[in-house]
């Protein structure tokens, strides 16, 4: 298998296997997350594709157990207490500076997704579990985290070691799945193609 870029030693099949084995983890142990691993995850987020390079999001790292409990209390979509939460906030000052239309510009939310995906993939490569959450009270989280008025929490990425019962990996998949064939149309909307042989 050839590499995608000169100088990089990433096997494309291994990268696909990494992405296709990541699973959402909803049950974390309280085991400490190494700080160097955390920085690497945040760095991966920084490299996420971003509309017009506007960088209107800020990442708030929460590790204090009491703060994590309070955020969880206001988040019906979060079921256990992870060791780390990364709260992705839209910085309204940055939005104003970039002259974006806050609730009309879809790229603001797309960039939240790319940020989350990069971080979750990197965490998986480090053997950590993740779970994204948007099912929380924005108003409640703003209060318990003492967010300034110009910071709007959009999503929370939970990071930690899976509990004994949890798992963050699935069997690897390195070739297209039947489901992919149903999801992808070629040339015309609705026109599917058979999977390649093998």
């Amino acid at each position, binding site marked *: 298998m050839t590499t995608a870029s000169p100088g990089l030693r990433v096997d494309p099949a291994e990268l696909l296997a990494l992405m296709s084995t990541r699973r959402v983890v909803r049950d974390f142990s309280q085991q400490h997350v190494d700080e160097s691993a955390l920085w690497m995850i945040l760095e991966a987020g920084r490299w996420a594709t971003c509309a017009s390079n506007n960088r209107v999001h800020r990442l708030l790292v929460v590790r204090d157990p009491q703060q994590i409990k309070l955020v969880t*209390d*206001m*988040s*019906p*979509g979060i079921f256990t207490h992870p060791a780390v939460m990364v709260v992705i906030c839209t910085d309204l000052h940055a939005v104003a500076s970039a002259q974006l239309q806050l609730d009309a510009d879809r790229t603001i939310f797309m960039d939240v997704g790319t940020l989350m995906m990069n971080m979750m993939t990197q965490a998986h490569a480090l053997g950590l579990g993740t779970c994204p959450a948007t*099912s*929380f*009270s*924005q*108003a*409640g989280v703003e209060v318990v985290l003492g967010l300034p008025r110009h910071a709007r929490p959009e999503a929370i990425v939970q990071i930690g070691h899976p509990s004994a019962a949890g798992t963050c990996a699935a069997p690897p998949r390195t070739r297209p799945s039947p489901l992919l064939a149903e999801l992808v149309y070629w040339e015309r909307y609705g026109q599917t193609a058979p999977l390649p042989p093998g």
Partner: protein
Amino acid sequence: MSPHSDQADHPAVNGKPAAMVGQDCVYELLAHLVASAEICVVEPHYYGSFRLLDAAAKLSAAMLDCGLDDPWLSALQAELDRSKILMMSDRPAFYSYLPQASRRVAERLSQAAGGHAEDMKP
């Protein structure tokens, strides 16, 4: 006035058996309910049922954690925790469970009221 009866391990309110719940648990459940009320207006409608089942499981767990010895409630809590996540994996089964849960609780209420729940089944 003490909320407890003469027997310390059998709390009572107005002469009736009471289930104790810690204050922290009450506030956590309160937070869950109001946060759910906020987010349910933007979530798919079936999430409303999920949030309420989750709240019921949390309430059950809170009562059990505070020492309530009730095998029926313990079984219900386990059942709620197991069944609520069907919302994500098997929605028809999730919908089928909702009246089952209601029936289970109604039977318990009827028994507590002195009725014969089994006789009341359709």
